């Protein structure tokens, strides 16, 4: 069985990946834009928040700056695609690679420790909760706020225009929607959420590291796909719920798998397992039509 601490740890990371899954939902699902920028914007958010915090900034402001940095990264990817006509996937790979250098520049070194700094979590430790429960409580609040904002946005005039852009661009244009602008806004929003996730992750782990983005996209996708298999995303609310629950379930499953000695799995096997799971989810025939339509089918 999982220890209580391992359980809370899995939920904590799951909540953070829930934010990542929100972002991936916007790019992959709403906009039909396969965006790998995420692997760079996650550590970017971590780097920006960490460096500002060690320079004495208020941790919430530092976290806000991380969101803006993530949005800027997403905007770069989308602009490469929309304005320069670079294939969306390739545009995102270019940004992702560039961000590796940017992140090193931002931090000035490969990693920044935050263990002795005040973070967004610090005041919450005085509330009398168990140490390992604190991040979970705070991140639940953050996820709820992000959930509500995102849900309201998707139901708004602009959000509906964004959904139409991804679903039927020609129809969207005919309705007077600037589809290019919608893609830029959406991919920026998506990476802003991922930047937020990175910033929170650095603060809960006590460090930012340039390599912490590796595989974030695949884990986020696994969360999204897993969630969609459990909660059919027939409405915006359900799709967003699927993101959060998918991420938490995924993390718990991984924690169990690593915990079960019989399987002989180690932490470094995580990315391999995730990649295999995502592949299976994409190719399994039953899943393909219902859940994976957009990823396996070529665009008409």
């Amino acid at each position, binding site marked *: 069985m999982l220890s209580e601490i391992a359980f809370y740890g899995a939920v904590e990371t799951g909540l953070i990946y829930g934010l990542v899954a929100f972002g991936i939902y916007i790019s992959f699902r709403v906009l039909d834009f396969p965006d790998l920028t995420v692997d760079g914007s996650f550590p970017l958010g971590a780097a920006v928040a960490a460096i500002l915090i060690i320079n004495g900034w208020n941790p919430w402001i530092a976290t806000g700056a991380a969101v803006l940095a993530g949005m800027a990264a997403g905007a770069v990817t989308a602009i490469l695609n929309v304005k320069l006509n670079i294939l969306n996937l390739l545009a995102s790979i270019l940004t992702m690679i560039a961000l590796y250098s940017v992140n090193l520049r931002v931090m000035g070194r490969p990693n920044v420790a935050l263990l002795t700094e005040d973070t967004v979590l610090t005041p919450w430790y005085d509330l009398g909760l168990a140490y390992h429960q604190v991040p979970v409580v705070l991140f639940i609040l953050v996820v709820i706020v992000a959930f509500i904002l995102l849900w309201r*946005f998707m*139901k*708004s*005039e*602009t*959000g*509906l*225009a964004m*959904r*139409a852009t991804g*679903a*039927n661009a*020609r*129809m*969207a*244009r*005919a*309705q*007077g*929607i*600037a*589809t290019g602008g919608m893609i830029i806004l959406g991919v920026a929003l998506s990476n802003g959420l991922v930047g937020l996730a990175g910033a929170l992750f650095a603060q809960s782990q006590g460090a930012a590291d340039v390599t912490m983005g590796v595989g974030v996209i695949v884990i986020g996708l696994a969360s999204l796909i897993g969630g969609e298999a459990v909660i059919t995303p027939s409405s915006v609310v359900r799709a967003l719920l699927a993101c959060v629950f998918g991420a938490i379930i995924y993390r718990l499953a991984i924690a169990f798998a690593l915990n079960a000695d019989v399987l002989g799995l180690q932490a470094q096997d995580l990315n391999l397992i995730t990649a295999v799971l995502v592949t299976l989810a994409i190719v399994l025939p039953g899943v393909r039509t219902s859940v994976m339509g957009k990823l396996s089918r070529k665009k008409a």
Partner: protein
Amino acid sequence: MISASDLRLTFGKGTPLENPALRGMSLTVNQGEFVTVIGSNGAGKSTFLNALAGEVLVDSGEIIVDNTDVTKLPTHKRANRVARVFQDPLAGTCEGLSIEENLALAIKRGQRRGLTTAVKKQYMEKFRESLSSLKLGLENRLGDKMGLLSGGQRQAVSLLMASLTPSSILLLDEHTAALDPKTAAFVLELTQKIIEEQKLTALMVTHSMKQALEVGSRTVMLHQGQVVFDIAGQEREGLEVKDLLGLFEKQRGLSVDDDSLLLG
């Protein structure tokens, strides 16, 4: 009023596949006119409509809509003046969105979109009223996904969406061609009714010469990216398909051997 003058457009310029689709295409459509457009496959009908909508930008020429030069504007900046229904019933609506969401997108055509709720309570009465005019029972299915509707139902809704807000011109490109005959007749009838009731200015491409003469107030034939004839009023009345063919041969000095012209 909408006026296109001397539009020229060549696809694949400078390549072996160079294809001049519009070669000096000119047409002026007055307020309230309902023009039917015919022409053989590849005559440039769709390209002309796309040029008016902004989906393709012409190499030269000028497009004026209600005294505004829109020649260089992209589609979304013309959408406040130009409404359209596509040939493919799947193209005009979003299948993943509900009927009311699709209508809410259309009611804001060409206008600024903000952060207020898209599907507003105050729209509901208008949505229900216009849907019930279709007599398809859709007024009770506002929350249903568009993808659940049949092709004909979707095309009928597309037509409603195009007429939900005023436009300077309504573009219809063979919008009944993908439907079975009965549904096609229903959608055509609906088209006539909406255009008449709202006094819309419209341009309708059709492959049926018979339909072209029966519907609307003026008929234009395109050939090789140009207007070969343009008839309206008395001249058009009582005209039959064979007269049209004769007219075409006279104008061009060549014979029509394209079966597609004879359809219908």
